[in-house]
């Protein structure tokens, strides 16, 4: 009777061991077997484009006509940002530089800010607007920025009620270690907009994302 009992133990151990390996493999596949980034399921509903007396939503088929002499008169300060396709409608605060020389970011995660060292939106050059991708718990104002598509419209309302309309040309993600400073803050001959937020992998040791997502847009109206 001694031998069969030992044999039973052996078979049970072998079987159980194989099952545990199988279960471990299944668990590993279930938790790590997909590489797609986890995104929240619900997208915000789109918001309407802003309107002003000066604003006509009919696109101009030819290029913008020469508006007389294109002097250096400054457009008014930006006060509001609307991106209908990703549900962004926010006031714009002013951002400067931090003590270490990096871009100040909004203290609130529900508003975006215009970098005051960049050209005003609608003026010649690349105006820079930054916003958070998320807070500690969930999405923030620029959470859906990475989903912008070329041709999506971006509206910047200015203090005098006029609206600058931009069209997205591209969205790119860059490792922060290789931030394209000269592209984002460098000169441009036309009126452009750069919308900046975070993306990529989150480094929980530093509390920062490892990449920036930047949407580029050019003035169409």
């Amino acid at each position, binding site marked *: 009777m001694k*031998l069969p009992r030992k*044999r039973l*133990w*052996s*078979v049970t*151990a*072998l079987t159980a*061991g*194989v099952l*545990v*390996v*199988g279960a471990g*493999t299944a668990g*590993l596949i279930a*938790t*790590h*077997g997909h*590489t797609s*980034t986890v995104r929240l399921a619900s997208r915000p509903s789109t918001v309407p484009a802003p309107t002003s007396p000066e604003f006509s939503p009919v696109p101009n088929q*030819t*290029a913008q006509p*020469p508006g007389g*002499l*294109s*002097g*250096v008169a400054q457009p008014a300060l930006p006060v509001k940002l609307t991106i209908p396709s990703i549900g962004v409608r926010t006031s714009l605060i002013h951002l400067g*530089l931090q003590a270490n*020389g*990096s*871009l100040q*970011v909004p203290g609130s995660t529900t508003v975006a800010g215009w970098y005051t*060292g*960049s050209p005003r939106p609608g003026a*010649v*050059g*690349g105006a820079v607007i*930054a916003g*958070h*991708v*998320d807070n500690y718990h969930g*999405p*923030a104002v620029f959470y859906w920025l990475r989903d912008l598509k*070329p041709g999506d419209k971006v509206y910047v309302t200015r203090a005098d009620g006029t609206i600058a309309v931009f069209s997205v040309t*591209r*969205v*790119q993600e860059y490792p*922060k270690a290789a931030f394209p*400073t*000269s592209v984002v803050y460098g*000169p*441009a*001959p*036309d009126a452009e907009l750069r919308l900046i937020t975070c*993306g*990529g*992998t*989150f480094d929980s040791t530093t509390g*920062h994302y490892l990449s*920036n997502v930047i949407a580029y847009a*050019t003035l169409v109206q």
Partner: protein
Amino acid sequence: MFRYSAAMTLLGGLVALVTAVAPAASASASTTGSASASVGWVRCAHLSPNTPAVDVYMYAFGTTSNPTILRHVSYGNVSDYMAVKPGQYTVAMRAAGAPSASKPVLSNSFSISAGKSYTIAGVGPANGLRLQAFDDQLTAPAGKSLVRVIQASLKEHNVTVSYGSDVLANKLAFASATNYQAIEAGSGMVKFSSSGSDTSAPVELSADTVHTIVVLDGANGLKVDTLTDAAGSQVAPAGAAQTGFGGTAPRPVSPAPWLLTMAAGALLALAGFASLRRTRSGRTGAAR
């Protein structure tokens, strides 16, 4: 022996599976970007004092379809820059309102390079009108203003332009341009000297900005238009922007518990298998 090799095959397969899954799990998908935008920029100007208004057509070289059209461009008008794909283009001028299929008054071909900007202007007197491309600059030296002068006055054939102690143009002839020069940024008066008299006009020349001062015939004497050729941020912030707190970041889950489970299972299976082998060989020995 069959069972032994079967068990080894099973274990080997599992190990292979683990090594296959683990790297796939740690790789992160990241790039959103399309190809980087490579465009050139063109603006059009009418700088011929005695030429009536024109319509400007810009065609991709060798085509007559889908031109970009600037309508009713008259003397002194300068368009905003338009971003275009690099390549050859034909620019044609027709009298304002003339049919698009009519023979242009003037046309010329230009090559547009990626990352460069150009001013394509109708220059000269009406009876010697020509289309000319000026190469524009994008970058000013840090903290400075980069300035050039285009002389488009027919009333005055030579104009000297100065700003403070800087002479921007010295007896510049009609229908020509100076090179750019870097000067101290600020606002002040720009002075024009010509055969007749000296005049001046206020200008604002911003730091880190490229300007073109265009000298034009005014109703009385000369007038000036200051164009912005390119501008960027006054100060480029250092590095990247910290715009997230991680609330929506995918939480990296450690694969260690699963790997440990698999290792423990493998050990248990091996122990059972080894024990089984011992009992089997023991029984075989006893029966002999």
